């Protein structure tokens, strides 16, 4: 039985995970491959922790089991740690190097782990690529393009051609933002390449 390539995207409602999932789906269609996805919709999105499951070459159910994701794309470091146990041994993580502290932490006077603590807890057994997606998205022209930056950065790990991914970006983003998103994809891809070549944070 041929295995699917399983990608878990995690972040906070409003960060654009649904569009990112659609881009991966469209890219798979461009390559004539089957795909399954599942994501958080509805009120759970309102600033809450959200997840998007994408199974390239998937033919059955859409949900990825803990310990079996080939790739985790995390839009927030705290969410990366929350879902890190989903990663399969030898899997990759591409993480946006920012933390949005949950409002409840401030309200309760509690503390959230710092970036350094999160990195330490993510441990050395995983291949991690930290990307400053907020900065790269702004460089591309809009903070909203951070989801496309993340896909660009993670494109090195996926079994999908970069041309298919950028083609899907062109098909799915609003017309007047195509240029911004193309640039966001390229900046993300370049940052991901620096990771691949051994730089820790780009």
């Amino acid at each position, binding site marked *: 039985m041929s295995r699917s390539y399983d990608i878990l995207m995690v972040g906070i409602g409003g960060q654009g995970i649904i569009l990112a999932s659609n881009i991966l789906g469209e890219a798979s269609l461009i390559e004539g491959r089957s795909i399954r996805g599942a994501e958080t919709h509805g009120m759970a999105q309102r600033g809450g922790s959200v997840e998007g499951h994408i199974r390239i070459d998937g033919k059955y159910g859409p949900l990825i*089991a803990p310990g079996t994701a080939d790739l985790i794309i995390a839009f927030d470091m705290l969410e990366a740690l929350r879902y890190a146990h989903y990663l399969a041994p030898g899997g990759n993580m591409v993480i946006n190097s920012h933390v949005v502290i949950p409002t409840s932490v401030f309200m309760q006077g509690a503390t959230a782990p710092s970036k350094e603590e999160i990195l330490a807890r993510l441990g050395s057994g995983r291949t991690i690529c930290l990307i400053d997606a907020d900065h790269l998205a702004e460089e591309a022209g809009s903070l909203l393009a951070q989801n496309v930056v993340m896909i660009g950065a993670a494109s090195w790990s996926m079994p999908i051609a970069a041309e298919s991914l950028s083609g899907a970006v062109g098909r799915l983003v609003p017309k007047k933002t195509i240029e911004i998103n193309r640039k966001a994809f390229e900046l993300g891809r370049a940052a991901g390449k620096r990771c691949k070549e051994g730089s820790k944070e780009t």
Partner: protein
Amino acid sequence: MTTQYLLGNEAIARGCLESPLHFVTGYPGTPSSEVIDILRSLPERDYYIEWSVNEKVALENALAAAWCGQRALCTMKHVGLNVAADPLMTSAYTGVTGGLVIMSADDPFAHSSQNEQDSRCYALFARIPCLDPATIQEAHDMARDAFSLSEEFSIPVIFRPTTRICHSKGDTILGERVISPRKGEFHKNPQQYVVIPAHTRVLHKKLNQKQPLIKKALLAKGYNQARERGRVAVVASGIAASYVQEILPPDISFMKIGAYPIDEEWLGEFIRKHERVLVIEELHPVVEEAVRQVAGCVPVHGKKDGMVPYEGELSTMAVAGIMQKCGITPARSFPETVPAGDLPGRPPILCAGCMHRPVFYSMRKVFKDGIFPSDIGCYTLGLQLGAVDTTICMGASITIASGISHSGEEHEVVATIGDSTFLHAGIPGLLNAVYNGARMILIILDNRITAMTGHQPNPTTGETACGIATPPVSLEALCRACGVAHVETVDPYDLTSLQAALKEARERLGVKVIIARQPCVIIARRAGIRRGRFQVDPDTCTECGLCIKFGCPALEKAGEKAYINDLCSGCGVCAQICPSGAIGKEVKR
């Protein structure tokens, strides 16, 4: 024919268009809402479509269109079917002329629901067919074919996708949209449409006579299939069938159930060929009960012997665990994992600038020992702010409040309900409370939209599902017409007026209504309303933390000082809370 990567609900909408479709009604509810949202936003609509005021209203409208010969779709979430249960049960008797498909979306694990009820039970109860898709492609195909099934047997059909169908995505093969207009025509037939006892007894008999034919037809259509491969069998339904298929070993027989009622003869024949059978389904043991009735001496594993949980949703991994417990080795194993412990949670939260937050804040200030029944909507999140004490079902904030008041409980009862929920099921409760002399305050949180499910318009919005302008209903006039003498409308961003209105209402007898009105902040942003952001002057900030306790996601701590981040929408409520005047409008430098 094209292949597209579609959300389950979009695949369902596209399937209906291939039927063809003439009439669409529904009330929003996760995970069902996108079907109508997609159908109402298509540029070319050759069908009538409405967001109805509630599910009973929606189903009765759709039933009428089906009586007039049109193909009608009615969508809702599972608990909406409770509201529509009254017309549902008797529509099975009257039957239909045009196809009537009732999409009732179930929510195993209650991702966004108050319970985990199983719509298949309603289909059994009403004795009507139920289609239960296992994949998005099947959801598309079943939605397309359900209308002709309904017409073939002149009976309403329940179409029951679950959250993991509605809100999953997959590559879906689409056919051509079919445009085939049918003008509605009502042909009088009192024996069918007037269910007086003499008529309904005959109709009930006819309904029962249809059953064996329906069972055979569903089997012939291939919704229920079986493959004999060994001495042990797994039977699965809905999306659980997809989970099973991913990990089914080659020597285990497999039966997939996608439609009800199940033909018992066919089922029994298959089951009795095996030494042991495992039934895997989400929620109620509908298939398992059918299997047990025909199994004879074949042992059956499932919910009733504790192998499969009654509650929650399944997954491929959960199914693997169940198989293992039952002595079947799954084709794939899953590792044990440990999630990172003690991380701060990130639950959903009311938006920055949401009008509900200052109302909850003020309720807590004015009614320190108050009892706060609430309702279904974004504002149920007021639980986090200590301002929601009960939530049970649509409209029940008002009736629970009046019931508490009549019980002799002496604390002030202050109920909250949204505009859409009030119109859905709140009005009879308010009428009843006034009529029977309850003492309570009702706050209508009026943001002029059905926000939680994705901003569907309702009668307060001033436009229909298709964007056609309509006169917005006056909540003030409605409440007064119910007999409420004290109706006050306030701006929830104006804390002084809001709290003064609450204090005044407290002093009065009977049922008092306060309408707090501001547009949903998401809609306001989309409409281009920019109020300008606020900022904290760190030199004036005394680090008292009162603004932080307000719980707005735009307020953070930078060190010990408050800080306003770029989520700020400019409502200005925090500036009114700050006792030292440290918060003011942002000054551009």
